[in-house]
């Protein structure tokens, strides 16, 4: 169980995230999503190929 912070409301707010860190964070997020989408795309193309070969095309 955590104790109440005696300095809550007195302690200054954390400094804003530096610009370079924000850029890196967004790049990481987008790279992760792009990797997931590319992975899903590869699986989809694989499945489409199997279905079309099964149809005799």
């Amino acid at each position: 169980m955590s104790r109440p912070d005696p300095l809550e409301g007195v302690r200054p707010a954390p400094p804003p995230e530096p610009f370079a860190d924000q850029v890196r964070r967004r790049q990481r997020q987008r790279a992760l999503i792009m990797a997931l989408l590319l992975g899903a795309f590869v699986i989809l193309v694989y499945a489409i190929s199997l279905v079309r070969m099964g149809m005799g095309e």
Partner: protein
Amino acid sequence: MTTVTASTDTALPADWRDLLALTKPRVMSLVVFTALCGLLVAPVNIHPVLGFTAILCIALGAGAAAALNMWYEADLDAFMKRTASRPLPAGRMDRQTALHFGVGLSFFSVILMGVATNWLAAAILAVSILFYVIVYTVWLKRRTPQNIVIGGAAGAFPPLIGWAAATGDVATLPILLFALIFLWTPPHFWALSLFVRSDYAAAGVPMLPVVAGPKATRLQIVLYTLPMAAAAVAPWPLGLTGPLYGVAAAALSLVFLVLSLRVLANKATEPKGMKPEKQLFAYSILYLFTIFGALVADRWLLS
């Protein structure tokens, strides 16, 4: 000389949530649903993987068209309360990113559709994207109050594409579904534009209520509801659907007509007195979902 400097937000890489917002996910849900229904009522059973891919391509194509629409209309969106918080007018993304995203997604969706299903479906998908972006967004929207009458065709393509993806051709039933959405669009949008008229006026968009006033718009809503109801019911007497769809379409269209007559009877010019218009707008969305749902139920339960 004016120097334009990028704000901190636009200097950052776009957040993925803003890229997603460019695709207008809420509008996409109706597009996906009508496309899925077009695919499901086709007389040919498409393989689930290909069916899924076709619907995915239609969703991506709709998202691409929406992104290109937001890219072109960023200046208009900034003037309207309803759209001012979108990624571009809010300054969270630069326009070039939206353009690249929209063009890339357009090509991707059309090519994948062609490879996975057939090139007729891919061609109709390409036409629908081009129609929405070039004919509606660039050409008509800022020039004529008939913008959504003609531009409404862009939103009417999905069931046609779904059908074409399954069968490889186009038949009477998907053409009637196209006509239904085409004729549904004006009453749907004019009901909305009546109570957000000041937004459109501020942005200089010549929507019918801005140019011709509420009275003429209300009359046009009723006049378009009549052929819309005829297009909705037509598949039944033509023998393309069964009685389940026919009765549902007739009942739902009758309610639509009653609500549009209540709009015609309303004399309010301020949004706070436009309850009938808000009801018709909300009902019009439910109407399209339900009528397409009835179509699929008719095909699958009675066949």
